[in-house]
């Protein structure tokens, strides 16, 4: 009920964001039911115009673009979501540990993170992928680890502030173990900034995967993926066929949507009136 009341008070920008995200999630879940064709099924001539049979036309080898877009939503969003979850698990656990333990653990972790952040992320990721190859597994691990450095910074900073509170001190004197402290004292109190960061990190990871796929080094064909679809159809644009703009616009729309929700959430958790 409280949630419903909150939603009723939400500003129009956040509502737009929620509709966008919801539509994307629905598309990702129900693709097999709503997609008119198969993911890699060749159904027609290349680069057909929009028509009733092909809502958005067809791609460079004659697959239905609308179907590919739906499957792209499923592939790209799920892998980005998986990476963000992994990155948050690793980053926040390390960050909390660094903050509560302090000493050499904090020092060692922070120096490693400093070094990783001194390197441009895209370049770092490309170098690592050139060594370990572009399997989906490698992709997930590499991006999650690279991204967890940012989560580490934030969760460490937040946990540092909570760690000095009296109730943490009290729990410590009571003899609680570090794991309990992290779960029952630090995690609940650091949730709002972490949730907002989750949205932003998701956007970043999502754009990052799209960029990698666009460079041909992310999710590998024939799996449908928005970044890869832009790359495959890029040649069309010089003939005045704007097919590559569709998946690119889909990427942009979803990121804007998530950003709108995060803005609203930040506004709510900052406690400002209006």
């Amino acid at each position, binding site marked *: 009920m409280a949630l419903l009341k909150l939603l009723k008070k939400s500003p129009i920008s956040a509502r737009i964001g929620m509709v966008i995200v919801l539509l994307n999630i629905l598309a990702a879940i129900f693709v097999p039911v709503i997609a008119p064709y198969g993911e890699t099924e060749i159904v027609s001539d290349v680069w057909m115009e929009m028509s009733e049979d092909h809502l958005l036309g067809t791609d460079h080898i004659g697959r239905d673009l609308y179907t590919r877009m739906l499957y792209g939503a499923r592939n790209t969003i799920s892998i980005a979501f998986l990476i963000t979850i992994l990155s948050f698990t690793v980053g926040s656990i390390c960050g909390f540990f660094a903050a509560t333990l302090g000493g050499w653990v904090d020092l060692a972790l922070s120096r490693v993170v400093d070094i990783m952040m001194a390197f441009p992320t895209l370049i770092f990721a490309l170098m*690592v992928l*050139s060594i370990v190859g572009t399997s989906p597994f490698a992709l997930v691990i590499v991006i999650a680890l690279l991204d967890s450095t940012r989560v580490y910074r934030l969760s460490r900073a937040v946990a540092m502030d909570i760690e000095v509170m009296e109730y943490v001190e009290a729990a410590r004197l009571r003899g609680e173990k570090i794991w309990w402290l992290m779960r029952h004292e630090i995690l609940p109190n650091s949730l709002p900034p972490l949730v907002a960061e989750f949205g932003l990190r998701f956007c970043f990871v999502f*754009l990052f995967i799209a*960029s990698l796929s666009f*460079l041909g080094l992310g999710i590998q064909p024939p799996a449908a993926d928005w970044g890869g679809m832009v790359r495959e159809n890029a040649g069309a*644009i*010089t003939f005045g066929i704007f097919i590559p*703009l569709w998946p690119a616009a889909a990427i942009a729309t979803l*990121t804007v949507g998530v*950003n709108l929700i995060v803005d609203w959430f930040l506004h709510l958790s900052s406690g400002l009136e209006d």
Partner: protein
Amino acid sequence: MIAKRLALGFLTIIVISLLIFLGVEALPGDLAEAVLGQNATAETVAAFRAELRLDLPAHTRYFTWLGHFLQGDLGNSLANGRPIADQIIWRFANTLFLAAVATVVAVPLAIFLGILAALYRNSLFDRFISISTLSTISFPDFFIAYILVALFSVEFVFFPSMATINDHMSFWEKIYTIALPCITLTLVVMAHMMRQTRAAIINVLSSPFIEMATLKGMKRMRIIVLHAFPNALSPVINIIALNLAYMVTGVVIIEVVFVYPGLGQLFVDSVSKRDLPLVQASGLIFAITYVFLNLMADVLSILCNPRLRNPK
């Protein structure tokens, strides 16, 4: 302070070079096996290993590699056997040219618009700037690039959609050819710089000395240009340098979109071909440029701020 920062930057580069070197070391098997594949005979692998000097211990090879790198000898490409340095230098110069032109356009424009946004806070113009910031953060770089191509080289034929430059072109021909990648890069970095300039100036505007200037009856534009801007210079310079560092990465994707013969494209190609010596060399150059620009951001903001310049 500055010396300390420089030493730290130098250390970072050393650590990065070590990481890049060790990354290739961590390959299962070694470079020779990775390149020749599973079908190679033991003799071929051994011969190739000797050619790459893989039979020497790791630390010796690291120092030889780093020493050669500093002298400009980057080894040979695995894909075509040609010296890497010959390919890289021309391309790196091209990348720097593109980034420099974009900087010359983006920085003054961003500062000017940022000041305007601070001056007319909460106006329609200010709204427009915050919306465009949100969109450039959310839009993938290649989306902006393809929209520009669709608009300015397909619908209205103003600029070429491919930015293939060569040395026979005059300076202005080159500028014309790289117009679209340059505009894309400008758009990508400008929104951020604009917003930070606006924030920095609004921050300074709340200081007592600005109120004093207002009470003296100075004009708003004059207050901002003469009093607020010089005091906001330190964060603004910092932001500019950081965005230039961002450009180093952004340029990779834009070069691929416009088939621009720069280092970014070479880097992506060598990654997909797994031409590891080339990946190492161009990765190190990117990393050094990035660290150098970040360093410059720190040093310049120290120089701009008297309190940091003269530590107690």
